[in-house]
């Protein structure tokens, strides 16, 4: 297709950059020359292609190595296990790929490339959309799709019919009047939405990135454990962990209080999947500040509670056995439920109790089994996640809890470095343990549950969703709309009274069905002219 007429006819069917034209050698054209060359290279299709590939490759280590964002513990274990490679990989950012500078460099380059590519294309497209369809090539028979036929009618009739037919099909139509005053051809074009969709898609990607980044910077998320019968308020101090965005301000926390009435869980009772969870729900009462009405709600696994743009998600649960601990004089040192952290799917759970008020201080480490089972090899273990036969194994320790050293301590760990173990006991609900050395008594009074909630505010998520929807709409337009041109010409040599009419059509290479469409236009024009 090196026919100049056809090249002209197909010009501007796409706004694709002409990156394939080899760039001029930048050598010897000065700094601006170099810059221009770099810019042109960066915004070429080939650069986009290579950057996309790099992005895909760069994401791979994010799935093969444990990542800080999701699995901090595993990262430290990995580094400990690989003392040589671990720290090197760490320095390379392999444990935090999606926050690593090299990963950011790739996607930022891609975004710059995208912007640099799309903005000029948008300008081109804007012009193309308002321009007239290009003139008919001199010989339509050179086009990939063409028809020639003779019709009963005048050239003007034929061209008017063609114009009407194409306009009715919502093509943009241009009718050229030859200098003699007679119409000689009609040119038509349609499918501009393809390019519009393509640009919309690429711009929506930029918007998506901005929305995700902004959401991350202005938002925050935290995790909190709430025991049955207790409540949590949306203030910084109440979170077990909290990760604010860089631009987050604490006064943006929406004030509310959530009280957990009851946590409900059901499990598969039989079959191969015995013990697999089947349903979770947390019944809560919440209010948005003192003096406001209290409302009941149920937070389910796929049903978060939304309060003024902040969402509360149920992400986990566990057991909080309840204890009463008294000293030798009968004074109550503790009467509460204590959170134990699950270690396996059947909720074998570890926990500690600290009694700083006793003198000397005492502490307990323990394992809670919701459905206790004994095995000569494994010892005690839990065989089912629901509390069918709850039992707790406790060790009592005496000494210095280390709470006064000023170093922050996990509430789930007992620092036994300056303590001594005095005894071990297993208890069923209701049983009392008389502690050794006259330390007092511990009663295992029962079991309650707790729920783990994620609380997240992400002001960008709505925007991100909107951008994603626009991207899909744009993409579909870009891939399914066919951009094509069609010409109808009546050659000067037309025999009277019949006219010889030439039809020709041209589409982008990926436009299937052009031949059928041309046939249907030809048939419609014939019908309009000959009235059959």
């Amino acid at each position: 297709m090196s026919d100049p007429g056809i090249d002209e006819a197909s010009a501007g069917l796409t706004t694709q950059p002409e990156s394939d034209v080899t760039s001029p050698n930048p050598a010897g054209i000065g700094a601006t020359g170099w810059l221009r060359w770099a810019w042109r290279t960066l915004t070429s299709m080939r650069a986009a292609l290579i950057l996309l590939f790099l992005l895909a490759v760069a994401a791979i280590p994010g799935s093969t190595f444990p990542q800080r964002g999701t699995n901090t513990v595993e990262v430290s274990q990995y580094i400990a296990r690989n003392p040589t490679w671990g720290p090197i990989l760490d320095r390379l950012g392999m444990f935090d790929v999606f926050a690593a500078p090299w990963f950011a460099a790739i996607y930022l380059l891609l975004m710059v490339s995208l912007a640099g590519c799309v903005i000029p294309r948008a300008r081109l497209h804007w012009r193309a959309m308002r321009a007239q369809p290009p003139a008919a090539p001199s010989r339509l028979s050179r086009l990939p799709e063409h028809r020639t036929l003779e019709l009963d009618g005048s050239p003007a009739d034929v061209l008017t019919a063609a114009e009407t037919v194409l306009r009715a099909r919502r093509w943009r139509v241009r009718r050229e009047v030859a200098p003699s005053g007679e119409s000689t051809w009609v040119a038509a074009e349609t499918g501009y939405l393809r390019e519009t969709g393509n640009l919309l898609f690429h711009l929506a990607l930029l918007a998506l990135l901005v929305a995700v980044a902004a959401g991350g910077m202005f938002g925050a998320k935290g995790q909190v454990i709430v025991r049955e019968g207790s409540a949590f308020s949306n203030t910084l101090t109440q979170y077990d962990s909290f990760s604010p965005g860089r631009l987050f301000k604490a006064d943006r926390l929406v004030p509310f209080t959530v009280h957990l009435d009851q946590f409900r869980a059901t499990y598969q009772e039989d079959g191969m999947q015995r013990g697999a969870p089947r349903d979770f729900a947390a019944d809560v009462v919440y209010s948005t500040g003192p003096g406001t009405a209290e409302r009941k709600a149920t937070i389910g696994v796929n049903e978060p509670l939304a309060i003024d743009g902040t969402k509360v998600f149920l992400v986990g649960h566990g057991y909080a056995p309840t204890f009463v601990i008294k000293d030798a004089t009968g004074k109550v040192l503790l009467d509460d439920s204590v959170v134990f952290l699950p270690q396996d799917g059947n909720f074998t759970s570890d926990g500690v109790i600290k009694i700083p008020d006793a003198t000397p201080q005492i502490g307990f480490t323990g394992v809670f089994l919701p459905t206790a089972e004994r095995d000569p090899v494994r010892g005690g273990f839990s065989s089912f996640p629901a509390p069918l036969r709850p039992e707790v194994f406790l060790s009592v320790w005496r000494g210095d809890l280390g709470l006064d050293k000023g170093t922050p301590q996990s509430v789930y760990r007992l620092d036994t470095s300056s303590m001594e173990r005095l005894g071990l006991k297993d208890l069923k609900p209701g049983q009392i343990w008389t502690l050794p050395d006259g330390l007092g008594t511990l009663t295992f009074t029962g079991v309650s549950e707790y729920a783990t909630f994620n609380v997240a505010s992400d002001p960008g998520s709505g925007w991100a969703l909107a951008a994603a929807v626009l991207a899909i709409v744009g993409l579909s337009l870009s891939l399914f709309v066919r951009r094509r041109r069609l010409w109808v010409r009546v050659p000067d040599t037309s025999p009277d009274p019949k006219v010889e009419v030439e039809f020709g059509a041209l589409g982008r290479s990926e436009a299937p069905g052009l031949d059928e469409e041309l046939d249907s236009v030809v048939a419609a024009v014939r019908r309009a002219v000959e009235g059959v």
Partner: protein
Amino acid sequence: MIKVASETTLAYISNNLVYASMLAYTVAMVAFAVSFAQGRGRSDSSMSVRDTEQAQSVVGSASVDVLERTDVESEPGSEPGRRAGNIGMSVMWLATLLLLGGVVARGLSSGRVPWGNMYEFSITSALGISLAFLVVSLKRDVRWLGMLVVIPVLLTLGTAVAVLYTDSAPLVPALKSWWLLIHVSAAIICAGAFTLGAAVTVLYLMVTRVDRRVAAGEGAGWFGAIAQRVPSADRLDQMAYRTNAFVFPLWTFAVVAGAIWAESAWGRYWGWDPKETWAFITWVVYAAYLHARATAGWKGHRAAAIGLVGYGCFLFNYFGVNLLFSGLHSYSGVK
């Protein structure tokens, strides 16, 4: 009790229907293979079924005599291997109906959509691939593609039955959502269509290889038999593009739907969980494929290779990630 019994019976029926369908798919595969083999016996020199005009443009005018269009197309009944091909298609329908029965029975036995774990996702995807193929076959003659469809279907079913099987059971709570219906059914359609796209791409690569050898005056090689029974390289390339271009927006949708679901289930819409990471990688590679098709010097072969890499990423996201990595998406049910 009666309810439980009937559910177990349904699961049992489902398993047997799946086995039966595998048997039928195997028969279909043999029929398609015979169809190819008979085609081969006929001639090594002609590219009969293929469009002369296009073949010409690929290999140049020197071999026009070799590539002459024979009268086979105008006399369909006489084409060798046609009978075997027809048998293949009929058995394919039978196999797909059996599999449909198996999938429906499985869904009924667990009282929910039949894609709650890897086993179910696999058998439903196999059904998706077959249905996509059969729907296309209603409109045009695609028996030449049969072999390349039935092989992945059988592989999928084989792994499902041998490696991924889990008893029928209700869903884990995280999967109880409307988004399961939307997100996973989109992913299943993508699995079917990506597979078709990859199958056509493989054929495209084979045919261009044959074309090159023929142009260089070498023998057509053992692909020759296959190449002569399929459309021209250009058409295959177009078909592969159209299939992948159809899937890409759907895949985008599946990923976005997954993000929305993740937001409601886990409180964040994107967390670079291995599954999410590979969904992203797959998406980016297919985007690269679409760009490659529009970049001179990358069209054709290289674009096709990128398309296959994309399909590889898709497969890895399914098998590799579910079985190798632990993440929030570990609900395969495989122990």
